[in-house]
Structures are given as C-alpha cells and as structure tokens.
C-alpha cells in the first residue's frame, strides 16, 4: 500500500503523519493521533459527528481524504480548551444548558457552533437551525442545543473575546 508522509498543523502544532490513500481525516486522527472526539457515525456527511475544521472551515471528516490535509490547518474539539483545562465558552455553555445526554454528537455540535458564531456572533433561531441542520442528536437535545448556542453567544459578547 502506498504510504505518504504529510505535514500539517493540528490544533496549533506542526505535525506529520503517514497516511494511506483511502484513509479519511477521522481514520487519521484516531490512528495517528489518538484523537477520538470527532467520530465517524453515518459516514455519509449527514450526521455531523465527524465535524472538524480545515483551514477554519467546518467539514465532514468522514468525506475528506486524509491525504488532502497536507499543508492545511486542522482544528478538532481537543484543541478548543485551554492548556490549563479551562473549557471554551461553547463547551461550557453546552454543559450549563444541559445540551446533551449521551454526548456522542456533542463534539460535532460544538465544532459547528464554533463555525456559526465565527460567521454570525448573534445568530437568530433560524440561522442556528440552518447551521445545525446537518447535525443529528439521537437523544434529541435540540432545544437545549439551541439554548446553549445562544448562551455561548451572549457570554462571548459580554467577555468581548472570540
């Protein structure tokens, strides 16, 4: 099997990885880096459990060839919190609003909400639903997820930080 060595930035650190041509981003993040926050569930772009950011844009890791990560900046849920363990305001809002039960979908939702708030710091309900329409929560925590998104938006605005 052709193995290629690629270099990219993962959660702010320059890294290299060996990838095989058929591997997707999730395969690579789990096998080469032991990161399990983004996970492959539907494998078809529909559920959002595999959401990661490539060059600042949310993508479905399950549909993205790992090989194409060469030279990009990849951010995952593991990179959100501070080194001292403080959580990102979006993560904290999900906890405070009770926006999950089993938590399987949560990393994907949090990464989508990060994208949403970067694009629109004060989103309407419609905009929230629109951005999150590609994320599924089988525990159906949707009302709490919308509430968490608004809570995060308010806190970020109050703190004046991204």
């Amino acid at each position, binding site marked *: *099997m052709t193995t290629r060595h690629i270099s990219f930035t993962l959660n702010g650190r320059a890294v290299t990885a060996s990838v095989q*041509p058929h591997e997707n981003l999730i395969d690579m993040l789990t096998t080469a880096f032991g990161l399990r926050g983004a996970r492959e569930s539907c494998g078809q772009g529909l559920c959002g459990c595999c959401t990661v950011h490539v060059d600042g844009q949310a993508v*479905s890791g399950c549909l993205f060839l790992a090989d194409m990560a060469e030279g990009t900046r990849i951010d995952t849920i593991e990179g959100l919190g501070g080194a001292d363990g403080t959580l990102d305001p979006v993560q904290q809002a999900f906890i405070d609003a009770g926006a999950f039960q089993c938590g399987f979908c949560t990393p994907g939702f949090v990464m989508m909400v990060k994208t949403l708030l970067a694009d629109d710091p004060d989103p309407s309900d419609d905009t929230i639903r629109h951005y999150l329409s*590609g994320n599924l929560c089988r525990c159906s925590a949707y009302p709490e997820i919308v509430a968490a998104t608004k809570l995060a938006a308010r806190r970020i605005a109050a703190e004046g930080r991204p």
Partner: protein
Amino acid sequence: MADFTIEYPGTLAEALSFLDPDDPSVRPVGGGTALMLMMKSQMFHPTRLVCLSRLSEPMTGCREDGDHIRIGAMTTLSQVEHSALIAAEFPVIHNAMKNLANVRVRNVATIGGNLAHGDPHLDLPPIWAALGAEAIIHGPSGQRSVKVEDLFQGYYETDVADGELITEIRVPRLPGWRATYRKVTTRALHDWPAIGLTLAARFDGDRIADIRLVLSAAVDIPQRLRGAEEVLRGHRPDAMLLARAGDSAAAEAPMEHDSRGSVDYKVHLLKVHILRGMNEIGKG
C-alpha cells in the same frame, strides 16, 4: 480497498496529463464529497485520483465577463452562496444553496464536481440549464463548450469524457428574467427530491415573453419541458393556461416511480408547482 495514487497538479496542463482518456478508474477530484461516497460504497475503485485543489484561476472564483458571469469549476458551493455577485445576478442560485445539503458539504463540494457527477437529483444543474449556462471543458484536444442543457446523456452519464475536465461555468446575465427553483422533498433536507422544477421567465407586461422550464429528480436527466413552454410563451398566465401547461408537461416528462413517489403523485406535484412557481415569479 485496492491501492491507488493521488496527484496534485499545479497547472491545468499538468492536470490533463495525469488524466487518461482510456481509463475510467482515473478520476479528477473536486471536493471529493460524491467520490468518497462512491468509494465507500465500493461503487468506484480508483487507480489514480487527480486532485484539482491546487489549481487557480480560471478554475477558482466568480467573475464578470461582459454580459456573462464565469464561475471556476473549483469554486466551492459556499463561496458561490456567499458571493455578492452571484446573489445580485442569479438570486435563484443563491436561494437554492440554503436547502442544498448542509454547511459542511457546501464548504467542500465544488461547482464542477456538482455538475460532472451527473446525478439528476442535484439542485444546481437544472438551474444552470434553465439559465442558459454552458460548461467550458478542456481536454487533450483543446477547449470546447457545451450547454448545460445538453451536458447530460443519461443517469450519471455526461458528455464530459474521461481525460477531460470542466474548468468553468459561463452564465449569461439575464436582465429582466426572474427565476425560481422548487425542490419537493418528503421532509428532511438530505432526502433526494421527488421532483425539482426550475422556472425562468421574462415578462412583457403581464404576458410571458419567454420562458424555460426544467424538470429534474423525477427523470434520468434534467429535462426542458418544451411543450409546456410553448403553451405558455406569449400568453398571460391565467389558471386555464397554467392547467394546460401542466397537462402538457405531464405528457412530455417520462417520470418514473421510485421510493419518493408514484408517477401519479409526481404528475400532481409537477402541475401544482408549475402553478405555484409561475405565481411566484409572475409577482416579481
């Protein structure tokens, strides 16, 4: 999964040299969203993928070119969605994006891949066809252009040969035209539509001066409904006329029964949406 290689050409000429007119297992990659699904489901086993992500203009971006707008094949659906130029010139394209897949897919999927995939359920190809757009295609023997309306030859079959690339879409500016795309799905957005109907028309007072109707999803390829257009062209779209256009459309469209509905159901949808679509664009 059998082994394959992935190439990243830096120029169009290099990209063409990596393709192979005689080998369908060598394919270009736009965003890869459709290809990945075909590879995962074992429908497609590549020997070589030619990734177009390092190509620049004219393969990327939206720009004005006299009385046309040109969109590079590698422009992502999100870039088109957020382009002020596209929103101003072709609101029907801008509006369709909101209900197309989801933010993550739009961030990656490309205009060229969307067109070359040849899936009749997709939302943009029928709209490009109704707008009179053409695909610019480069291959070993140079450049040619094909009207999007004539690009599709069958279910997942297009006029783009192995060894060729779509480089741009060229869309005429249509001053005075109004258009709408009506996507009828059973509920969830990821559901393929039972029918897609694009209506584009130019009015002269309350008469339809010119019109193009394109049916998609319920047929093998996006299809002009020329009989129904003929019924409508030059007339005032009252209820009687729209009903006649609906009958004509139903007679000329070879719709098929599938999991998204019976032929009767789709005929009904087609008639209803000709009526609603004309009411929508007739109001201006």
